[in-house]
């Protein structure tokens, strides 16, 4: 399989993630969208690592995974806080401040 196939798949995944982030009203759904985006990144990194013939990209992907895990933990904590203060995890409920 050529590298471009993986990159195309990665781009498609990334776009799906962006679509999810933009359209989901549920904060958890937005988090899943972000997850799709970072998975696209990991796929890119690993495919490009193979294309370049060294392991740097794979190491990068491991770091990226760890970052994503930490980020999701913080995100879920904030969503929980939102639930406690607003009794809802819909992003539309957090619109008190605007203008």
């Amino acid at each position: 399989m050529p590298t471009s196939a993986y990159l195309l798949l990665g781009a498609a995944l990334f776009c799906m993630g962006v679509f999810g982030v933009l359209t989901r009203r549920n904060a958890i759904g937005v988090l899943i969208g972000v997850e799709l985006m970072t998975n696209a990144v990991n796929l890119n990194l690993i495919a490009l690592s193979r294309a370049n013939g060294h392991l740097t990209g794979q190491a990068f992907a491991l770091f990226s995974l760890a970052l994503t895990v930490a980020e999701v933990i913080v995100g879920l904590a904030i969503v929980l806080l939102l639930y406690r203060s607003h009794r809802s995890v819909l992003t539309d409920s957090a619109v008190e401040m605007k203008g």
Partner: protein
Amino acid sequence: MNEWLSGLQTLLIPVLLTAALLLLILADLLLPFRGGKDGSGGNPKNALGVIAFLQLAAVAVVSWLSPASGLWVGKSWVDDSWTVFLHRLFLTAGMLAVLGMYAHGKKNFARRQGEFYTLLFASLIGMTLLAGARDLLLIVVAFELMGMPLYIMAAYGKTDGDSAQGPAAPGLLRATPARRPAEAGLKLYLVGAVSAAITLYGVSLLYGLSGSTQLVDLAKAPSSPLLFVGVAMTIAGFSFKLGLAPFQFWIPDTYQGAPTPFVSFLSVAPKAAGLTALGTILLIGFGQRGDIWIPTLLAVAVVTMVAGNLLALPQLHLKRLLGNSGVAQMGTMIIGLLAVGVQTAHGQPDPAGLRALLFYFVGYLAANTGLFLVVEALAASRTANDAPETRDMIAGLSGLNRRSPGLALAALLCLLSLAGIPFVVGFWAKLYVFVAAWQAGQAWLVILAAALAVIGLFYYLRVARSMYLGEPTTEAPVPVPWSLKIAILVTALATAGLGLMPGPLVEAARAAVAGFTGL
């Protein structure tokens, strides 16, 4: 083993901060929580703020005593004079943040003060690592280390659990947290997480094309549309985080909802760290190939300045006004970066723009932090009798000069500095940036920025007019806690002092940029 030790020595400041963070966690575990409502009654946890400040002060002293060694850790981190300058800037910002937070934390989340300072330290470690990072992987990791604690800190609000007598209710759902900090945290987090993913995607393409994560190797990447996409996505991701238009929508909301002393930190240090990181990627990686990134960044700078100024114009809420005006200030800082980029692309690197940028950071740190802390002092002094709709509003400052002339003078100095009036530090900051851009042949950009600064004058001076000409609702002076008083005094003195004598700072910035490795 020896290599390890020398690596640790080169990374002295981040290592010391890590040790300080661990000690702070330990102190937090050892100190019990006692006391009643509002953390009154000699809560031992209040000592954590003092410990955090002393630790930061100690690290700052070490930083001032140890000049740049010029040594590298592997090929990914360098301890040059540029890094050292930024370290000192971030440590100063950290100390101001602890001073600003001390009274606020004691009163609003007495039980959780230690966590807050621990998170602040984690963010500072990220910033100090970012300052010297010359490798994409390290930049991404350090950037996230800086950013993630900020999401949590933004969501810190007053909860019922803290003000109740005795231990807090153990159940997750018993205490109801404040709504606005939760909203502020969510907005900052969602923007941060999405922007991190966008940046990572851009970076993954840059890595694939150049075959290396080191910035110097990025120049080897062959020109292709994919390279342009990678650079554009990296800039877009950073734009989200730095609040550059058109990705600045989250800034006023987050600033309004988050605790004010935290906002005073968020609005300067992380932005400076992010902007310098973006600058190192673009200048070291693509300095000779300005055509890839200069048009994009130019468009971002223009849109950011226009949007920031126009959105700040109608604001009556002080924190929202400062948020939008901060967006405009970021646009001006990018001009400094563009000036260097244009000169480097023409084959005659002239670091005047970078010097102006460093000078701008210091001036902006003093003025913006000072102003937010005045807002915090006013908010903290409010009683139940005050009308809730004046909280954090320009109207709430009305007649401040007759209540507390010192506080009003400090706020006035900061406002003049942000507006760029001679002879306060902000004037020189703007002037140096404009001169650098003019010399790089960007005359129209300078004229546009100067015209927009006139709009800025209007909304900054509207705040000053309210303080000096408005009628106070009460004649009582504003009670300011001592820690906040020190912080406001330091920022006001720095704003005025550096405005009258910008020479030493100019020299420091010159020395810092002279050692910038890789230009």
